[in-house]
């Protein structure tokens, strides 16, 4: 990672607030992504499952980490992104994305812990990212 200043382990990115997402936003994501799951769009179906409102697509939230990470370090490539969907964020809830550097080295690149949470402040997504210069990408 020559020439690029590596972030320090423990560095926290500024929290990134997104949403709240309304029904039109969820319809738009469903159309753009091809995710036809009615659970995200149908109030009656959401209530039948026990949610007071439809949950936001987990993939919409996981994917939203990329603008955050790119804004932080445009010189690095997001080589890996993963997330576990722990609990839903419901339509109308604001969402906070946070990220913290777990490991950072010229050999490995920069590993980050990702967290997304809604109003409940309990994690909705627990994820990881690896950012590297493009030439460092490997299996």
């Amino acid at each position, binding site marked *: 990672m020559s020439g690029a200043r590596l972030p320090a382990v423990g560095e926290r990115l500024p929290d990134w607030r*997104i949403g709240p997402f309304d029904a039109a936003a969820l319809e*738009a*994501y469903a*159309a*753009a*992504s*091809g*995710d*036809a799951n009615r659970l995200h769009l149908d109030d009656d*179906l959401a209530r*039948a*499952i*026990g949610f007071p409102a439809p949950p936001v697509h*987990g*993939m*919409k939230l*996981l*994917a*939203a980490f*990329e*603008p955050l990470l*790119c804004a932080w370090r445009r010189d690095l*490539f*997001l*080589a*890996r*992104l*993963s*997330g*576990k*969907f722990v609990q839903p964020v419901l339509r109308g809830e604001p969402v906070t994305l946070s990220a913290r550097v777990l490991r950072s080295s010229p050999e490995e690149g920069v590993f980050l812990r990702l967290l997304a949470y809604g109003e409940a402040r309990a994690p909705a997504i627990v994820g990881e990212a690896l950012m590297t210069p*493009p030439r460092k*990408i*490997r*299996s």
Partner: protein
Amino acid sequence: MAAEPEGAGARIGPLRVCADEERVTRYRREIGFSDTLEKIVPVAFPAVWLTAEEIDAAIRDFLAGEDVVPVHESQSFHYFAPLRVGESYDLTVSVRREAEPPRLSVNASLSTLAGEPRLRAETLLRIVPRPASLEPVP
């Protein structure tokens, strides 16, 4: 292309997919990029291709006859090189059932038309009993 049985799993593809510029731009906007003029394929964009009917049908086949629903438990994208707007790729997917915990593992590989690997992606779908209040999908 239909899913081919492969022991306890199924293999789908290769499916020819394209990082279509209009679709990439739309997806970038929906995940929060403010500058959608930038021609970069988002890391999570292949999720669009994973909604293909062939893959959906394979998942339905695995769950046929069971009173269960799949719930998206986790997702990962692992790149070997970035994707390029406008380029076509071959997508191969395997679907495998895991017993404990009960779930489906959907593993996708994306390569250039010359066979160079670009991405591995894993989708885990937890299989849960269908809520009593939820009608079966016809």
